[in-house]
């Protein structure tokens, strides 16, 4: 898969190996599996992210910058979030895809950060685990200060922007698109919903509805048309289900196993995994090649 012959063997033997790490038998800390037959998604260009992985799959020539994580391995897909009357909803499926293989089917990609905030992630799952640890540390700090202050969703959003942008500047980006959603209870005029997005380069914005990756194309048109900040919980849930259904129909790397998370003045609630009713027995599906005359 990786054409070793093009590189001098002492420079690099795998996508994640720095030239500065000695790679003889004794020195290799991780054994062989990192060096030779690393499973890389066959065609990096097919991985649906904003920035294409570098063409040399992370290998480093002498004098070039180090590129530690320029290919995602296990990835999650779209995360959706919308505001409603009392707070916010967030939803995504539970797939951890290995390239285009549906490898892990119970990956929780929405985490509760504190009583007012949840974070959802698409992109590299291991990087998200790292981000989860960072947030966990922050919350531990909040607890230890013991002064009654807790972080608001917008603070967590700002923090994640800094983290993502900082890693991008190190040429070592965290390969995620993040959605931060929650309720800010500190405002004078009551609870205030917040939804913000952070890209893998530290780009960020806030809106009444947000989606990552394919959701940007498949779900946000629905949100633009039907989402209102004063919609009821029932309306919001059915809109979210509709959006998830569309995603599942049209996005190859998704599965029919979702979680839905809610933040309101009461706190955070993350649902158990659920499936949506789908309909596939359309007439046009019976003989798929009928309208594709002249192919093979």
């Amino acid at each position, binding site marked *: 898969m990786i054409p070793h012959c093009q590189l001098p063997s002492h420079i690099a033997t795998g996508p994640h190996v720095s030239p500065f790490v000695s790679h003889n038998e004794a020195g290799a800390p991780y054994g062989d599996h990192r060096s030779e037959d690393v499973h890389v998604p066959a065609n990096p260009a097919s991985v649906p992210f904003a920035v294409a992985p570098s063409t040399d799959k992370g290998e480093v020539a002498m004098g070039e910058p180090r590129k530690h994580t320029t290919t995602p391995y296990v990835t999650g897909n779209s995360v959706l979030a919308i505001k409603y009357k009392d707070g916010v909803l967030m939803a995504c499926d539970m797939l951890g895809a290995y390239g285009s293989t549906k490898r892990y089917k119970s990956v929780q990609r929405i985490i509760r950060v504190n009583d007012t905030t949840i974070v959802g992630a698409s992109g590299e799952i291991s990087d998200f685990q790292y981000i989860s640890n960072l947030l966990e540390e922050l919350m531990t700090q909040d607890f230890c*200060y013991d002064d009654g202050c807790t972080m608001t969703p917008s*603070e967590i959003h700002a923090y994640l922007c*800094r983290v993502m942008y900082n890693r991008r500047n190190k040429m070592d980006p965290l390969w995620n698109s993040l959605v931060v959603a929650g309720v800010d209870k500190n405002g*004078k005029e009551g609870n205030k919903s917040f939804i913000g997005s952070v890209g893998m380069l530290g780009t960020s914005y806030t809106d009444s509805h947000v989606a990552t990756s394919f959701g940007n194309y498949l779900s946000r048109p629905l949100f633009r048309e039907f989402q209102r900040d004063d919609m009821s919980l029932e309306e919001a849930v059915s809109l979210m289900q509709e959006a998830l259904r569309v995603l599942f129909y049209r996005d190859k790397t998704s599965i029919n196993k979702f979680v839905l998370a809610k933040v309101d003045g009461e706190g955070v609630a993350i649902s158990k995994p659920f499936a949506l009713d789908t309909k596939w027995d359309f007439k046009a599906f019976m003989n798929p090649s009928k309208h594709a005359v002249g192919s093979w």
Partner: protein
Amino acid sequence: MFRNQYDTDVTTWSPQGRIFQVEYAMEAVKQGGCAVGIRNKTHAVLAALKLSQDADLSSYQKKVFKIDNHVGIAVSGLIADGRILCRYMRNECLNHKFVYESPLPVARLVRDVADRHQVATARSWKRPFGVGLLCIGHDQTGPHLFQTCPSGNYWEYYAIAMGARSQASKTYLEKKLDDFEKCDLDELVKHALRALEESCGTRKADDKDGKLTKQNCTVALVGEGKPLLVLDGDDIAEYVDAIHSEQEEATGAAAAEAEMSIDTSQGGDGAGDLPSVPTQAPTTETGAAGGDGQAEEQQPMEEG
């Protein structure tokens, strides 16, 4: 100068279990110009008496600093040390704003400053900061007033005074404590200034007749939706004039009040439940720690 063999560095305990360098540092705070802080449910204010080497020849030393839009401090003691802490606090606030796009909670800032105080008492190559801070601020949990101490202790208060002759101010604050909660910002500032005036004393060096003037005091205030404001000079003249004219209207009452405050300041420890740092009661340990401590501690109070 040298009282005993146990006060040459901060990491040596005396046999009585005291660390003299830390106590000396706290003494420096007591000799600094007085500062008063008050807070109620909506606002927090600071008022500080500025000292001057010579009222006619030099300017007054600045001792109230804006840290951020929501935090301000008043310094008693070695102002130069105070400026180090001021720079540190400004840095912390800026860093927090950069990372979280929100103001740093006041309690956290004060705790971090107190930790810096403390570390300076635990390293043989360092010395304690010779300053106490009064820190006011406003954050998501409302207005706050903190005091820090060179020992690394810190306390939150509704009202407090520190520095030279601050006992007189504390007496005023204790007497008026119940009024603070319901009064508005202007009235809170006036309370702070009246409390400060109690501590003006009648010293030749810094003011003629123990009165506040627009030159010798500073006020800082902060509250919900009100960024920190430091008032100096002409900005404060209005308040100073106001309390003086009120005093003139009720001269009899004012005289009685002044008498009372002198009484209590002479009473010393009698005022009771103030934050008790070890040096506040040196008299009790005179026998053990050596009688020289007592005389020394009194003397600089007069020179200050």
